[in-house]
């Protein structure tokens, strides 16, 4: 039996290692950090973890509708492709920082990319 993407990446331990790095990168990016003002950091980190778990191919029950609903307010504030791209950059950057193999990073990016239309409410 072949290992799932989630298992190959290192499962929950890998998600835990990634979440701090990813969130810190996002908050440090002037292009997108205004979308994270006034949010509770712990709640936000829990959401980031759920998102990364999903992108890592781990257990989740994310639906497109959840994604739409969760980002609707941000879309009103001007969330667009450029911001989505910035987050994608940080996702890959985080995984590179963790020295994960390029082909796995590509698979994670593809899963994350598949949420673009829902996140941007299109």
């Amino acid at each position, binding site marked *: 039996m072949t290992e799932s993407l989630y298992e190959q990446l290192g499962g929950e331990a890998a998600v835990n290692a990634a979440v701090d790095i990813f969130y810190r990168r996002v908050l440090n990016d002037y292009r997108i950090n205004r979308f994270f003002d006034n949010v509770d950091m712990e709640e936000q980190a829990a959401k980031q*973890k759920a998102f990364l778990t999903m992108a890592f191919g781990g*257990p989740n029950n994310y639906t497109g509708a959840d994604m739409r609903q969760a980002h609707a307010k941000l879309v009103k504030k001007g969330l667009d492709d450029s911001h989505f791209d910035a987050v994608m950059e940080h996702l890959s950057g985080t995984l590179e920082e963790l020295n994960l193999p390029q082909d796995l990073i590509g698979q994670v990016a593809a899963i994350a990319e598949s949420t673009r239309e829902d996140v941007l409410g299109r």
Partner: protein
Amino acid sequence: MTVRKIKLDEQTVLCQPDEPLLDSLLRENIEISHGCRQGACQSCMLRSLKGKPPAEAQHGLKEGLKRQNYFLACLCYPQQDMEIAYSHHRDYVTYATVKAKQMLNPEIMQLVIETDEGLDYYAGQFVNLKREDGLTRSYSIANHRMHGRQLSFHVRRLSGGQFSEWAHQELQVGDRLAVSEPQGLCYYQPGQPEQNLLLIGTGSGLAPLAGIISEALHDGHRGDIHLYHGSSDLNGLYWVEEMRSLQQRYANFHYTPCISRGEPNPDKARGRAHEVAFKDLTALKGWRVYLCGHPDMVAASKRQAFMAGASLSDIYADAFHVASSSVD
């Protein structure tokens, strides 16, 4: 596997074998906030009132929450009958007698009470104090655990503050108060004596921090302990001499009182406590951080501490919300 009885408030729910507790509660139309159903979002957190919940149901929770028998309903497959509560006991567990009142500065009073029964608490936690007519406010415990049944609090007098004005003016030594179970996660956790600690407090936010510091030092903490206590002016600071003498006794304890407005003072740092702290300490990877006081300071500092490298799971915060200081 057998069906388990789950008691929540007045209701009893039957949890089927191989069914997560969350599902059985939702099936009975009990409102439980929930999200991911897989332990990540932690929105379905409940608390076991009798005994430990199943270990797997505590997966990913902070140590303090685990110790207080919190668990996630979506990960919980009950192994026995359970009695659970939404988040914490709403009941008052004991009564206490006022032992002493003493002004620490023009606006903050130290209130010492003795509880009828011993409480199991950690320095830095808070309790709700309830007056006879039901008026309730939360106050942080300012002493460490060696004091047994004696608890002390720093009660800042707020103009128009119903409880604080009453406590300052009318509450007498010998009067009685109801005391809730200790709550909150902003406390000293033993077990990592080498970890550096950063504590930032404004106003009476010094109370829980002082408790945490004395518990840490008492526990033989070896890492550096940095305390930044701030106020807008000199009048708002207190325990300056106490903290200075502690600094002389313990080489690893560092104290910086901060004044943000008014005349510069030669032996106080100039600026807001968190701004001074993050100017001094720029690399916080591996540090544990405690933040107590004004909600804006707490929110800003949480972010700055995280950006400076502290892990979110190492940041403990207790924001003093004035309007909602009586916990719902």
